């Protein structure tokens, strides 16, 4: 006999007419399901006690207070201003797929740095933020970056690139490269890398270990950034990182069945400019899509949260890995999945491959 699932029992309490007759009849005649339904009803009653609240909302006053910030003709060219408010704020950010991520990343990192003033951006958890490909293209054009700059590193160990409002330069101790063993990778980076002991079906073993040295990137704001920002700079520290790729039966193009990335917490410092100046400048750029800017305000807290790209067409959800917030992304054909989280020691982990969500989470849970 098929018992009625918990979700259906739950809905039976709220919307009984939406539940199939056969399920409702089953519950009536099944002692086990009735007992489960009773337990669920008790939980519902408990929760309702806490949410049985009344709060007066003065719509006229709320509208009056908001009028100064509402606009007559919304457009994507809207400027932004900073409104003094209580001692709290919304922050967040946005990313997407492909090489254009670099451009979006610069905006995010800049806002993140601004969020922490002249101190440190050191996120301790992750959160998902969706953006469209159009958003990414707009920001790419804004930043004036070419598409050969990739987000997970730079195309050469050191170099520089002109931005419309300053100069992006980066240095590192060398390029990314392959090493012979996990011990070599750990020695080269100083990272402690945990790998899964039980591999999903279709994944045979480690194919190669790669390391990326720490990269320090500096965005020096020039005259194009205006008099307030000119002369200020953001210093972004990325890596070091260890990438472990696995071989197996399934490979599409160059994508293997499983890859595990371990990377040090990104850290950003800013000098010269204040929080409001940098944040205001970046968000006021006409190329920043309004909806992305809105997400930046509403999702996550950049002081503690690392925004994760959720590509268009993919589904994403928030979960937890060993108590840390994690983001799981599954592509729309359910062929590839990935999970990313930051552990309690400040190390960011990413697990991705041609696996379903359960397999990716299984690997992630082993890493912790």
């Amino acid at each position, binding site marked *: 006999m098929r018992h009625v699932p918990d979700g259906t029992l739950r809905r039976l309490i709220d919307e009984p007419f939406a539940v199939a007759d056969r399920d409702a009849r089953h519950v009536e005649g099944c002692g086990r399901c009735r007992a489960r339904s009773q337990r669920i009803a008790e*939980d519902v009653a408990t929760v309702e006690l806490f949410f049985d609240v009344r709060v007066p909302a003065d719509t006229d006053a709320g509208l009056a207070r908001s009028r*100064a910030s509402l*606009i*007559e003709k919304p457009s994507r060219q809207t400027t932004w201003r900073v409104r*003094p408010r209580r001692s*709290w704020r919304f922050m967040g950010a946005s990313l997407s797929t492909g090489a254009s991520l670099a451009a979006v990343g610069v905006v995010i990192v800049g806002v993140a740095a601004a969020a922490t003033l002249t101190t440190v951006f050191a996120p301790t958890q992750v959160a998902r933020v969706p953006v469209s490909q159009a958003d990414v293209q707009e920001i790419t054009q804004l930043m004036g970056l070419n598409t050969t700059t990739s987000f997970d590193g730079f195309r050469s160990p050191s170099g520089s690139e002109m931005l419309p409002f300053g100069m992006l330069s980066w240095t590192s101790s060398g390029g990314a490269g392959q090493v012979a063993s996990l011990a070599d990778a750990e020695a080269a980076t100083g990272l402690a890398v945990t790998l899964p002991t039980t591999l999903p079906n279709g994944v045979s073993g480690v194919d190669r270990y790669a390391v990326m040295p720490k990269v320090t990137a500096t965005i020096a704001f020039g005259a194009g950034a205006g008099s307030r920002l000119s002369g200020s700079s953001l210093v972004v520290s990325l890596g070091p990182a260890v990438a472990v790729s696995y071989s197996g039966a399934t490979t599409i193009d160059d994508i293997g069945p499983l890859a595990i990335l371990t990377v040090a917490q990104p850290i950003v410092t800013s000098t010269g400019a204040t929080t409001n100046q940098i944040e205001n400048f970046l968000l006021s750029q006409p190329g920043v899509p309004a909806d992305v800017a809105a997400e930046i305000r509403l999702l996550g807290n950049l002081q503690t949260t690392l925004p994760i790209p959720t590509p268009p067409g993919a589904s994403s*959800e*928030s979960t937890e890995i060993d108590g840390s917030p994690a983001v799981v992304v599954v592509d729309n054909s359910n062929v590839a999945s990935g999970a990313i989280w930051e552990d309690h020691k400040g190390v960011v982990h990413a697990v991705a491959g041609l696996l379903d969500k359960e397999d990716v989470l299984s690997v992630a849970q082993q890493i912790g």
Partner: protein
Amino acid sequence: MGTVLTLSPKARGGALPASTGFEEFFRTEYPLLVRIAYGIVRDPHLAEDVAQDVLIAAQQRFPEPLGSDHAQAWVKVATTHASLNVIRSTRRRRVRLERAPQATPATGPEELAILNEEGREVRIALARMPRHAATVLVLRHSGLSYAEIAEAMEVNIGQVGTMLRRAEARFRKEVDHATRS
């Protein structure tokens, strides 16, 4: 003091015309958004701030929101997330919430004390829950139907009952934990 970024007109006084489509949307959604926010932050003034900021952001995202299911769904989820951000943020902010009067002025001292304690427990419990679980729980207990929750959270309606059941069980467990602590 922190700041909140808001949109403003480019080179004008900032006055909204006497009546616009967005104003109607604001009037329709505002009371429910305040209730959603209050269910989480348990501070009526803070709840109104959250609702206002979300609606200001919504105007930029949905210039013509009337009749848009997506706009209606977005503001509810954005309010939930923004409110969760408030209770999950810095210690200083949490301290402020602990001190804040969390009821209307007409509330008596005994009832206020109970509400303050209850608000503390709710905030602790919600802050410890996964975001999607806290979201489905708050939206349902703010009066949204399963169909509205499915639309807002972009999930299949068949998943809502399961998500809600798990969220309520977790909430009860977290509240028990918060009560003991």
